[in-house]
């Protein structure tokens, strides 16, 4: 291999590495988005299932009204689920991954709000 080939070889490799690096960060970004979306969809899915369930119950038994407080605690539960899955649910950091599983008092307040 002569000097010039060596040089161009390195140069090509350099540009390829740079390209790869940007692809990496793009992919990571994309993965984060997919994860966030996934959690959102899971929550929504659960909401829909609950709605469906309560509707079918209503159909069978039109007298019992779904209780509001219960519904409230259900959505809390989903928030807690999302939190336990490793994501912030608070206004400050919503949707961001929690680092090292550390607690967050903003999330805690929302999940346990009276």
């Amino acid at each position, binding site marked *: 291999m002569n000097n010039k080939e060596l040089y*161009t070889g390195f140069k090509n490799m350099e540009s390829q590495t740079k390209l790869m690096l*940007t692809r990496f*960060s*793009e992919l990571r*970004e994309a993965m984060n988005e997919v994860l966030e979306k996934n959690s959102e969809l899971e929550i929504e899915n659960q909401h829909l299932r609950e709605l469906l369930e309560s509707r079918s119950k209503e159909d069978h038994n039109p007298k019992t009204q779904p209780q509001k407080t219960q519904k409230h605690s259900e959505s809390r539960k989903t928030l807690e689920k999302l939190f336990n899955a490793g994501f912030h649910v608070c206004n400050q950091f919503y949707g961001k991954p929690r680092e090292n599983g550390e607690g967050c008092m903003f999330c805690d307040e929302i999940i346990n709000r009276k």
Partner: protein
Amino acid sequence: MPKLVANPVIHDADAKQPQLVDHFAHVISNHDLTHAYLFSGEPGAGKLAVALQVTMALFCVNPHAGKPCGQCNECVRIANRQHPDVVIVEPDGASIKIDQVRMLKAEFSKSAVEGNQKAFIIDGADLMTTEAANSLLKFIEEPVGNVVSFLLTSNKTQVLPTIVSRTQLVEFPALAPAIFAKELAANGIEQSYFNLIMKMTNNIDTVKEWFENDWFVKLQTAVSQWFIELNKRTPIAFTMVQTDIMPLVNNQAAKRVVLDMLIEVWRDVLDVKFNAVDDHELNFPQITNQIHQIAFQIPKLKLLNIIELMLKNNSDLAANINFQSLLEASTLMALDELE
């Protein structure tokens, strides 16, 4: 007291983009300025000057009809880039570095130092990583307080689409030839080179670099000589590549200039052959006679072949082909066509 001189930034903005300057003066006096702009245009089109000029108009103590006075302490400090509430970021080398983005984010979240308004000018908005650009987005889109941001780019297609969609785009037209000619004249450049220069660039700073130690003049002479030898159909044209042209090629940018010149001299021949230009419009007015001679002699088809040859050189250069071989090969092929 230092003598009052016209504010160089205002002068620059007025000279390069008089219409945009008037446009912004109008926007400012109607209080219609939005908080984020994307200035897109070629290097040298006056993007930074206009951004600074608009900023001055916002900070100026004695503004007049949306235009800054240029003389007050605010205007002077903005022009000198000494105003703490006007944050200017330019690429450090080939890109905007993480440290610079961090500094920007910190500045966006802090109150102004002096008054109650801040301005951000980010030159090279295309030269940030996707991540960096994304992290700035929130600050640019929903700034806290009285903030205006100018993002400048010469390469709009490389700017993150989310940035483009959240800023107001202002296209900077290439400098009008008359304005650029004035600028060239002001820098002491001889008029006979104007046509050639304007075909190749719009940026006065590039031109200044070219004319250091008369490099451009020497190269233009070498290319003219090469053309004259080709016209005589002598193989001397071939040796001239090594003896006259190559010694002037000392970096990558120089290679492009050489290739552009070869294209432009043959474009002259084409234009003359088809009576498309007057003589004073030629790129190489110094060798008008030889251009006419060749244009008269050469069949159309062969001329088109040569021009195609010269155009192909650019892609060959990108493919890392040795530059001297490239020039020599195209010289030989051109001689072939001329036989």
